[in-house]
């Protein structure tokens, strides 16, 4: 019952990983492409290292800002098990783009729970279409570990039908000038992975 022709993207990760920027850039790109856009992001409490989610929807006409379960074309995650946690948003034929980073939650450190040792196998079982990316490693090689989010963004852009020029312009509008170059590099490194 969701509207025809709406593209939905879900970005997840751990508070502090830079989900907000990713969502802003996608929204900007979709607007530049002439779509109606709605996004939603988590602010406040959850940003202190908790699980976070950002949702982006664009199309000819978009009503609610929240992505209905089972309808996202792309689910991108900056952390392995966060992808599993939010898997329900992905459409059956959707793509999961997952950074290979593992961040241990305090519940695990406190001995209250365990981090699944078989996270990779689980990802493969849950997501028929899966792209795992070494986002952090790539970003570190570029000398900017904080740009791992943009590497993932570059990778997920491969599954959205928006032009390269549009992505670049969106980055220009949303990334601070002093970080633009390295982030453009991070973006194209991510794009390469989705080829």
């Amino acid at each position, binding site marked *: 019952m969701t509207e025809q022709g709406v593209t939905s993207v879900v970005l997840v990760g*751990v508070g502090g990983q830079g989900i907000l920027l990713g969502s802003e850039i996608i929204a900007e790109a979709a607007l530049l492409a002439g779509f109606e856009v709605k996004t939603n992001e988590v602010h406040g409490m959850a940003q202190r290292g908790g699980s976070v989610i950002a949702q982006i929807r664009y199309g000819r006409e978009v009503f609610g800002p929240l992505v209905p379960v089972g309808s996202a074309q792309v689910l991108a995650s900056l952390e392995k098990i966060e992808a599993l946690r939010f898997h329900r948003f992905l459409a059956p034929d959707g793509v999961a783009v997952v950074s290979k980073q593992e961040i241990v939650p305090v519940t695990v450190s406190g001995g209250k729970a365990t981090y699944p040792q078989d996270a990779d196998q689980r990802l493969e079982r849950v997501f028929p279409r899966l792209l795992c990316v070494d986002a952090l490693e790539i970003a570190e090689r570029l000398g900017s570990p904080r740009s791992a989010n943009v590497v993932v963004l570059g990778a997920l852009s491969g599954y959205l039908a928006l032009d390269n020029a549009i992505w670049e312009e969106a980055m220009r509008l949303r990334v601070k000038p002093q970080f633009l170059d390295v982030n453009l590099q991070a973006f194209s490194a991510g794009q390469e992975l989705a080829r």
Partner: protein
Amino acid sequence: MEKKILSGNEAIARGAYEAGVNLAVGYPGTPSTEILENMSRFKDEVYCEWSPNEKVAFEVAAGASLSAARCLVTMKHVGLNVAADPLMTLAYTGVVGGFVACVADDPGMHSSQNEQDTRHFARFAKVPLLEPSDSQEAYDFMKLGIELSEKFTIPVILRSTTRISHSRGQVVLGKRQEAERPIGFEKDPPRFVPVPVWGRKMRIRLEEKLEKMRALVNRHPANRIEWRERKLGIVASGIAYQYAREVFPEASVLKLGWSFPFADDLIREFCSGVEQVLVVEELEDILEEHIRALGIDCIGKEVVPAIGELSTDVLLASRARLEGRQATEPQTSVLPEVEDLPARPPVLCAGCPHRAVFYALGRFDVVVTGDIGCYSLGTFDPLNRIDTILCMGGGVSMAHGMDRAGDPRPVVGIVGDSTFFHSGITGLLDIAYNRGGSTTIVLDNRTTAMTGHQCNPGTGTTLMGEKVQAASIEAIGKACGIENVVTLDPYKMEDCMDVLKQAIESPEAWLIVVRAACPLHARKKLGSTLRVDEGRCIACGKCLNLGCPAIEGGGGKPRVNPLLCSGCGMCRQVCPVDAFVDGEEACHD
């Protein structure tokens, strides 16, 4: 025509700017905070401030409005409880310059201690209520609010919600238009002094204003009927409208943007034009109850939940219930791959100074009445050192209550710096005045961190970017009459322990100010990145009791995540075998 993607909060700020607002004030609170932060970009034309609390902010705006300034005051839903006193009577006196109180609700309690519905307040105070359903309307209704406020000389409530404030969408921008009337208060005691003789007249005038508004609200473009199929008609306001459009694309809709005073004629017209009426509202059944009171049969909370936030998914289930189908709860069967995932709750950041205090308090048999801020996170394992939270400022006064009730254990009240200035001072004054014996700890991290690091009276800076004299918490404590006032550096954990022991064992009231800047805000490392020397580590797990996200445990010897480590060195102080060593050293090994 300039079109931009704005969050609801950015849109409200932009709308206020264009509406010619002269003064914008408030107190931070998720999800309302970014309105004023964005407003301060217009500081050359708009005076902006973070007030110490919502009541003060509301009164500042009320004063400015009587001087004919156009005003915006912002707060989260619980903030309006604090500002309820001025609201209720400002509705009587009325305003001069346009006055909009933007209050942001948090259905689903993403970042709040309760889920109260601000729409009750509009009806309670008898003031107009505007409910935008997206960023464009957030912008439009802010402007409309100023217009209505001046037309009816009444304060207006603009109710946002988390999904309005923190969603982005397109907004078509315009130009700023200032009021023609010059700033200046015009004396008129019967209008502005609600002593009983004049107050009773104000009471009547308020009803007259409501009557005039009722005439307009039925034909105002903010309220509209969208005729589609006549089988089902939906009444909705705010974000609920969007979900309703998505889930019931065929239904006729009465969309209420200006939702109080109730648009009775419009409601009657709509309801008589459809076979069945469904009221879709987030949180309370305010519209539903009113529609029933008009003698109209409708369905509402039987199928639409009154608890928690709505969404397209929630409404899909409502639709199934309405149609007598089994609600196909999306994905009820949990996959085995996700069933046992470890929870990832929010935590105090690595290097957070609050951690040292909770760790130290863990060594004492005391009751800790806590408060609201990042330090609320001290409630959870492994720190587990906050026993109660009620409302801002409550940490100080509740400790006094327990102490005076004769609780057998010593009581410690904890508040942050912003919370102390908000409403902790009066509690401390009470302790001094009534000779209480509880210990008050102010966690002074030099910022209002939880809501995204705003300045406050103690930081020496303002929202407009000025440098000012910082208020001294110690001096305030002394001025209240507290004799034992101590300042501590939380990174010296032994000192903390010693002073806490002294204060807790003392029958007198103590004020302990724990001062260290929030490292997330200061954006600098506190020391070199540490690592665990595996040769020395005996896997005793003591460092894990700090609950630091940079120390990753989970069986065996812990390791430090170098991306998160702030170099604060607390782990070094709790490790019995000096296993934490400088990361740089690691390279030489």
